[in-house]
């Protein structure tokens, strides 16, 4: 079974530029999460999708971050414009349909963003 795919793996941009990350969850997984992991901290939820609908985006900085999952499969996270404090690893995770709270979340390798 293929895991969660993310691209690119690394990205370096200047502040005020825009950037987009892509995630393809495990086939058949209905729930998709984007987490932000700043160096020295644990991952923090940005947004959760159930199929193509947003379940929780309460911690997403909506003035600069946006995300979509139009067909309920892969997802894109965008930052526009980027700030220095956005430097982090952006993790995508997915869980099977039904998304019971005890279900394991499967994580992708992450995209390491450096904003200079």
């Amino acid at each position, binding site marked *: 079974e293929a*895991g*969660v795919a993310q691209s690119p793996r690394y990205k370096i941009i200047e502040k005020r530029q825009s950037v987009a990350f892509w995630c393809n969850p495990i086939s058949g997984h209905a*729930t998709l*999460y984007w987490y932000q992991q700043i160096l*020295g*901290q*644990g*991952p*923090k*939820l940005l947004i*959760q999708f159930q199929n193509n609908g947003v*379940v*929780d985006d309460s911690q997403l900085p909506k003035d600069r971050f946006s995300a979509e999952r139009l067909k309920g499969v892969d997802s894109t996270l965008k930052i526009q414009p980027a700030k220095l404090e956005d430097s982090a690893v952006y*993790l995508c*995770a997915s*869980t099977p349909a039904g*998304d*019971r*709270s*005890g*279900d*394991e*979340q499967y*994580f*992708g*390798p*992450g995209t390491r963003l450096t904003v200079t």
Partner: protein
Amino acid sequence: AQSVSQHNHHVILSEAASLELGCNYSYGGTVNLFWYVQYPGQHLQLLLKYFSGDPLVKGIKGFEAEFIKSKFSFNLRKPSVQWSDTAEYFCAVNAEDTGRRALTFGSGTRLQVQP
């Protein structure tokens, strides 16, 4: 909202030493608890989880954790560590009774096992 504290930020052990990593959470309702591990250069993966039943949970690679509800704790243990256990360990929680499935993570503990 839930929060998770991992008090040990960096632990250095020799091979065969015993390991205990602390994890405390704050939430008054029913929780599910997880330990995730990230080996160097690899992605986060589940080590073990608790969501009901026996509070002593056994996971992969000889790890176990005990849920002590009265102490809001879910400490990770291993009787004898190996060099290959060198990794970063994250404790995480989600609330069973809120419908919110996203995980709240602690800040992680970096374990370094010396041969």
